[in-house]
């Protein structure tokens, strides 16, 4: 065992591989709780869509498919740069790591900006639930329920992206200060798991909310 791993290995572990698998397992268990967290909103969606399919399609038709597609593409790009950021940290490429973490943060911020414009557009179209809600079509109350679900689910998702962006910036600073080096790549690997998870949530949000009423 070299001296670099020596300082990284916590005393409760026998070897670095054991520590790495414990780190990864812990993160995956956290992600399983996140699946349940979002799961409630997806279950609400499932019940609503099953009960009132036609109102649902009409409401979904008001969302901008192109913006949603760009959102998806931006997040997929960010997942690619994230994967390469983890790789760069493992290979000890300090500046490459900082660059890739930065680009990942920029993609995340870009996603939030696009979504901000979408929210603004929906606000001006009176699609935000509450006093100013106006929906032309049958059953505005149930259409309002669709938008409650939409804002709650995408809002929770955007919060996750925001946390992810902050995380990327902190990691970039830690790499810059050499607090994270190749021996401590696991910190970035774990943050990467979180980032990819947030991407996976969007992979479901896009077809469920934007594409349901695309036709």
């Amino acid at each position, binding site marked *: 065992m070299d001296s670099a791993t020596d300082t990284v290995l916590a005393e409760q572990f026998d070897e670095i591989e054991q520590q790495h*698998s414990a780190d990864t397992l812990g993160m995956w268990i956290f992600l*399983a709780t996140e699946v349940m967290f979002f799961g409630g909103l997806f279950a609400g969606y499932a019940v609503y869509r099953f009960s009132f399919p036609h109102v649902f399609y009409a409401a979904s038709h008001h969302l901008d498919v192109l913006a949603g597609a760009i959102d998806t593409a931006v997040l997929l790009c960010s997942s690619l740069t994230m994967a390469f950021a983890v790789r760069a940290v493992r290979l000890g490429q300090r500046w490459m790591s900082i660059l890739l973490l930065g680009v990942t943060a920029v993609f995340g911020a870009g996603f939030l900006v696009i979504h901000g414009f979408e929210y603004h557009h929906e606000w001006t179209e009176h699609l935000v639930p509450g006093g100013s809600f106006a929906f032309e079509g049958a059953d505005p109350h149930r259409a309002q329920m669709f938008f409650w679900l939409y804002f709650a689910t995408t809002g929770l998702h955007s919060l996750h992206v925001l946390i992810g962006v902050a995380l990327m910036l902190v990691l970039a600073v830690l790499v810059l200060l050499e607090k994270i080096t190749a021996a401590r790549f696991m910190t970035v690997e774990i943050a990467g798991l979180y980032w990819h998870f947030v991407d996976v949530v969007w992979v479901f949000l896009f077809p469920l909310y934007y594409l349901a009423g695309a036709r």
Partner: protein
Amino acid sequence: MSDEIISPRIYFKNFGALIVLLLLTIGAAYLDLGPLNFVLAMLISLTKTALIALFFMHIRWGGKMLHLAAGAGLLWLGILLALTLGDYISRGWLPVAQH
């Protein structure tokens, strides 16, 4: 978690496949397939999830414990959805005395 460093080619191929699936899911949404629209959209999303988890999240190189933890999340989500929808779908099946 294996100690091998994954080749860039795998990441680029995975990304390419994800973009193709994104275009497919958008295209499929504009076809009139009835209830199959939803099934197809979910199948594509599940495939994308599998690709992200296997290659970007390194599940492909992970141990059995990891597969169990990842599978547990999906299994419990399945229970949540199946039991909830089991109730809503079956509500109209039996006549209920009117109050």
